[in-house]
């Protein structure tokens, strides 16, 4: 699975439009501590941080690419590979854990055939376990992109996957 994603990554790399990244860098170039906002902006723009963009940021902000790689891999929010069209997040915070989040996670694993922080080869789904989404009143909780699903059950996982399987990829 991961090999397939890696191949796609290398295939897509040449198409990266660096002018978007340059615009983001222009915006923050004079600000102290600008590495994180620049990376966050690039992540929003591209959906992940392509290698070419990381190299460009290193060049223009005058930091080592290794330092950028360190930051990118330290924070959970940054991604080095393209992500799925639908990002499924299941909360595994304390409240959700005691209300049965583990079985929700495992059912998603079964249905999607991917594990934590992985993407399906067709780029439809990315699955993530996340710590507290701050809506503990509705535990256990799942999110697909911006839609929130509270009081999750194994049956509801079925419905969600069936529903999103039918949605267009674009």
């Amino acid at each position: 699975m991961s090999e397939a994603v890696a191949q796609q990554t290398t295939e897509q790399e040449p198409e990266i439009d660096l002018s978007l990244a340059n615009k983001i860098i222009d915006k923050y170039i004079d600000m102290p501590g600008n590495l994180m906002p620049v990376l966050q902006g690039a992540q929003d723009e591209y959906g992940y941080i392509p290698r070419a963009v990381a190299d460009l940021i290193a060049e223009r902000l005058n930091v080592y690419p290794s330092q950028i790689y360190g930051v990118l891999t330290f924070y959970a929010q940054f991604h080095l590979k393209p992500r799925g069209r639908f990002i499924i997040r299941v909360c595994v915070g304390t409240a959700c854990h005691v209300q049965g989040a583990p079985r929700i996670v495992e059912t998603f694993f079964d249905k999607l055939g991917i594990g934590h922080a992985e993407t399906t080869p067709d780029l439809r789904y990315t699955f993530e376990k996340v710590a507290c989404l701050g809506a503990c009143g509705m535990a256990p909780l799942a999110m697909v992109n911006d839609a929130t699903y509270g009081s999750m059950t194994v049956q509801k996982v079925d419905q969600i996957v069936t529903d999103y399987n039918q949605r267009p990829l674009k």
Partner: protein
Amino acid sequence: MSENAAIKILICQGTGGISMGAKEVEAAFVKHLAEKGVDALVGKRCDVIKTGCRGLCANDVLVDIITPEQGRVTYDFVKPEEVEQIIDEHIVNKSIMEKRKAKPYYNTFVDKQMRVVMTGCGQIDPDSLDAYKEEDGFKAIEKCVKSMKPEEVIEEVKKSGLRGRGGGGFPTGMKWSFCKASPGDHKYLICNADEGDPGAFMDRSLLEGDPYCIIEGMMIAAYAIGCDFGYVYVRAEYPLAVQRLQHAIDVCYEQGYLGKNIQGWGINFDMRIKMGAGAFVCGEETALMASIEGHRGMSRPRPPFPAVRGLWGYPTNINNVETFGNVRHIINKGSAWYASLGTETTKGTKIFAVTGKVKHTGLVEVPAGMKISEVIYDVCGGIANNRKFKAVQAGGPSGGCIPADILDTPVDYDSLIKAGAMMGSGGLVVMDETTCMVDVSRFFLNFTRMESCGKCVPCRIGLKVMLDILERITEGHGEISDIETLQDLGAAIKKASLCGLGQTAPNPILSTINYFRHEYEAHINDKRCPSNCCKELLLWQVVEDKCVKCGACKKACPVDAIVWEKGQLAFLDKEKCTKCKSCYDACRFMAIE
């Protein structure tokens, strides 16, 4: 509110409210009010106002209607399709819809609390500066600038006894005076809103519900300490909080409450939001500063403390959101009033996020020193699903579990530490007889192990070794010597780790071994999980003399592994069973083991 005021319709729009459809409810109110011409019908203006979180998120969407005749009436679980009827009966016909009104527990939930920091939350429109000013907004900073010297402000905060609400409980006034005493003209102020503790969401609710109050708190601190630049470090997982706070900051700049020479008072203060990127350790102050500077969020040894050498080497003062939320009330009402609340060592109120297996989950603000049992049973209605209380976890991954027999412990910093837990950020996760304490320990350790920044060895490797042992125990391969090994490792990690994350990470394990040693022993000696929680140790069968033949388990099973006919005992087909535990949770009679 005055007699001839307009009718107000308050709709709770925190993250909880919005995900339950508060936006649709608001739209329905606006639409139906306009279509029916209700303003003209009742001869009063009807204002639909969005507010921040009211605390009882499990019952969203909450709608309060305030009319001169009926005063304030709360409806819960409001759906857009019910709105028309509510308008007709309540506003036009002036009769309360008794059936749809929130049940008496809502009043108990509200009345037992004491709202100081959260006064604005759920009452005012978080985007409106005017609404905030009506609630004495920016009066406290005005009072400071016009009639108090910076030293007097610090003295006032010291006298109030306010302690840091982020978890450590360091006296806030002292912290300010240290930073003020540091030499240099350029100092930074940071508001720590990296609320990563799973199960706590009071900082998020404050930022979403009353962002101006946090800005004012920071302005007062900046005036007292003598800094002119402040950062708010917010978790990336809180998009709504970021959006509301950014809006509030923009409005403050427009109206001259931020920037140069604020309101002509001769003080300068600039503010900026810094978004986190998903790292729990960034809640630790030195890691947080590293993150703002654009590095990996790794902590460093202290001293030097941030008050001496902080952000970019300048003296820096860091406080939690809730701490800043207290400040304006102390200035407005005086330190003597504040110090009269709470206990000898913990003054004021504390917001708790009560979650888990309790009837009414939500945010509650109570005077420090209230008993935990009162918080759980009186305010939040006790345990859900008719089950027995086992323990409450206080303080998140840094805290510990408090068992039933010391549930009368008051909620203040020192009593909680004595009980083996800690205040932390104020998460209270309630657990019933179906929660396994070994599994909970494993859960917390897994969390802290993943979030360890990896800089110091005791935390990075020690936690991993402890986790391996716990996993072995929950899988039924534990040895009796494991308990002692865990205790030894825990003590060593606490002593040797660099920052708060490692120094407190073993607490959940040590406290559960202390209070629930028998559960560890049952896992190790009998290879059984007394709470029927650890999958590998479950038998997956129906206990015949407990089964009441209700069929709830059959409905819950996603793979039809339960055979049941009306009036018959249920039977679990182990061939088909995927061990998902849905049936176990559905059974209210503990008949599956």
